[in-house]
């Protein structure tokens, strides 16, 4: 009981601290934050794609490691999409803020799809199952990019 209470306090403190940090963060830093997150997601997602598409030898350990990283990384970028960054030049469309609920639900879809990929990868599932989960995650990325990211 005591332990749970401590954990709750710690969690509450963590939320308060991070919220405080966000409130002060300069918009440019927030954009850096989310772009860094997206870049890392791309970095660890790409090789899984190359492996399931036979462009690279399949290595279940790398898939496991990358999927684990991705499960955490996928939670990060949303934090950088604060309203204060609206006017900073980036590839984010204004709809990110004008239709923030849809945006958030797309982000959630991506996080769920990545979580699924991670579950499959950690369970040591075969390549076909990883490929299916990878495809689902790729679709989730695209669904959000299509509506909320400037077509370059």
């Amino acid at each position, binding site marked *: 009981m005591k332990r749970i209470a401590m954990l709750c306090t710690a969690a509450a403190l963590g939320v308060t601290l991070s919220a405080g940090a966000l409130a002060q963060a300069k918009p440019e830093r927030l954009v850096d934050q989310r772009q860094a997150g997206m870049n890392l997601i*791309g970095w660890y*997602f*790409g090789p*899984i*794609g*190359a492996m*399931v*598409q036979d*462009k690279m030898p399949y290595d279940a350990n790398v898939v496991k490691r990358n999927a684990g990283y991705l499960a955490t990384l996928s939670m990060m970028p949303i934090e950088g999409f604060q309203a204060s960054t609206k006017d900073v030049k980036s590839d984010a469309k204004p709809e990110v803020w004008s239709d923030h609920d849809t945006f958030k639900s797309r982000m959630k879809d991506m996080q769920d799809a990545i979580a699924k990929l991670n579950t499959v990868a950690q369970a040591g599932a075969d390549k076909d199952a990883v*490929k*299916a989960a*990878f*495809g*689902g*995650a*790729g*679709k989730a*990325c*695209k*669904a959000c*990019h299509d509506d909320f990211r400037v*077509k*370059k």
Partner: protein
Amino acid sequence: MGTPDSSNQPHGAAQVSARVWDLPVRLFHWTLVALLAFQLFSGKTGGNWMQWHGYAGYTILALVLFRILWGFAGSTTARFSSFLAGPARAVEFLRRLVRREPVAHASHNPLGGWMVVVLLAALLVQAGTGLFANDDIATEGPLARHISKDLSDRLTTIHYWNLNFILALVAAHVAAVLFHWRVLKENLIGAMFTGDKLLPADLAREVAAARTASSWRALALVAVAAAAVYVIVKPVV
């Protein structure tokens, strides 16, 4: 070419069926239709479809290269020389269209001929940029690694916008054949299936006398086109 492309025979004059499209042209046309539909679907859906988007793109590239070769070495009606007309004839044809005077053509009419060339060029641009494109998720064309990310992004932009151009061309093409069908009572769609068009007798005779290239030659040219594409896209080992 000894084929006069048009006839001034009035509507309703005796019409004779003539083989105007050889089998390779028809197969090319409908395979392309199916593949373009697939590309639209796969490109918009993403995920694991992107792998097949790539393979279908290579196939389209090979088909277009084949069609260009066939435009020089195919049956008479398939050749560029029998359907590429100057602007004056295109304008004259358009004038007749507006007056709803049907003008029979064995091959493509002067406007349709330009549509073919522009469509083939647009498809080459689409397939060519696709080889260098990236989707910023997990897919890139087989040649993207040879160029900078910045250039790949710019070619991806062309790939994206050129799609709209192709869709506009397809819409114009479909609208035109529907116009021929409903207004001018010419069934060009059926001709692309059966290969046969109803033509005024004199024109039909000319077509019958014109040269038909063998399907074996087409197969050989398809092999040449496919080999060329393979050399371009083959994975590094």
